[in-house]
Each structure stands twice: as structure tokens, then as C-alpha cells.
């Protein structure tokens, strides 16, 4: 009886927005796209596109009943200040978000994923 209850509660948790899984997907996607590269003006366009598309395809493979919005910002490291804020009007019990800040020696990369339950 106890095992059945545990399985049900695990299933309910897995159906929701799981921040750790999404965070892993984002990190892998950014590492694979930018890795140790320096900021290159003519390539950064492809990088942002590649990161959001890879994240989106991995997320839709999870097969959960969510709509997703993915935002990616890549900034060259040269001393400029930058601030980002987000606010959301949604259903706190079913929806969630995950933001990953990544950097190497030359660039900052910030990726946000918002998941809204259908």
C-alpha cells in the first residue's frame, strides 16, 4: 500500500514543471553550443538560435502538457552593466520557470525557460 502511494506521488511530481531536469537540459545545450568560444559577432546569431532550438526540442521530448517560452541572452564581457527582470501572471500551482546563468572567459549567457500548463 505504501509503495503505491509513493509511486502516485512521484508521478504527480513528474507531471509538473521540474526545475532540475530543465536546468540540466539548458546547461548541456549552452555547453554544446558555446563551449570555450570567444564572442564572435558574426556567429552569435547562430548560437542563440541553436541554444533555444535545442532546449525546445529536448523539452518537448519530455512529453509534458506544457507550453514553453525560452529566452536566451548572450553578452560580450567588456565591463558593461546589464540587468534583467521577469514577472509572470500565471497559475502558481502548475506553472514554473528556470533561469540558468552561464559564463566562460569571454561571454555571459543567460537562458530562461517558462513552462505554462495547458
Amino acid at each position: 500500500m505504501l509503495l503505491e502511494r509513493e509511486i502516485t506521488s512521484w508521478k504527480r511530481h513528474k507531471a509538473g514543471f521540474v526545475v532540475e531536469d530543465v536546468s540540466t537540459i539548458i546547461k548541456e545545450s549552452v555547453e554544446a553550443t558555446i563551449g570555450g568560444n570567444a564572442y564572435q559577432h558574426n556567429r552569435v546569431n547562430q548560437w542563440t538560435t541553436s541554444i533555444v532550438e535545442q532546449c525546445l526540442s529536448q523539452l518537448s521530448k519530455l512529453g509534458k502538457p506544457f507550453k514553453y517560452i525560452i529566452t536566451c541572452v548572450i553578452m560580450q564581457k567588456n565591463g558593461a552593466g546589464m540587468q534583467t527582470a521577469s514577472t509572470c501572471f500565471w497559475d502558481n500551482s502548475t506553472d514554473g520557470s528556470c533561469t540558468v546563468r552561464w559564463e566562460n572567459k569571454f561571454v555571459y549567457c543567460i537562458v530562461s525557460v517558462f513552462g505554462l500548463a495547458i
Partner: protein
Amino acid sequence: MEEFNSGEEILQVVFNPDEISVSVKECVEGVIGGTDYNQSKVNQWTASIVEHSLTHLVKQGRPFKYIVNCTIMQKSGAGLHTANSCYWDTATDGSCTVRWENRTMYCVVSVFAVAVAL
């Protein structure tokens, strides 16, 4: 046969990006119009912009969930690139991005609206 008109209005569930773009611009102007980049205040500015924009959107009373994202960056020659990708219902959901700048900073605000099933 008499025709019976119930007199009810049909609530239009369509995202209107132009209207939103105008109200977001006014919001940004109201918060940072005429100021220079100030590291100690930029935190309050981004928070203020997203909150005011969201309040305005919610007041419209439409059946949408919203995500409002604001980025402020100092003008110092650094390169910045952003990308968004969305997995949703293209018939009912939509987004709108507003770019604003003055002498010392750039401000990019993105609004995403996802229809709620009634």
C-alpha cells in the same frame, strides 16, 4: 420565425501586439526616460517596468497568462544578442518585443501572452 438575439458580446481571445507595444513604451518612458545608466538604480528600474507593464496587461481583463521580461544594458560597446523560442498554440498565443534606447543605455522588453482554456 422570429430571430432571437441574446445580446451577448463575444469575447475576442486574440493577442493584439500593437496595443501592447504602445503601453509598454509609455511604461519604459515613464520609468527611465531622461535618466542615465545608474548601477545602483537599475535594479529598481527593471522591477518597476515589469510590474507596471504587467498591471496594465492584467487590467485589460483578457483570458491570458502573461510573462514580461525586461533587460537594461549600459552602452559601452559590448555586443548583446537575444533570442526567444516558443512552443505554444500559434492561433491564440503571441508575443511582442519593444526596443528602446537613450544616450547611455538600451532597454528591451518582451511580453508573452498565452491563452487560458476557459
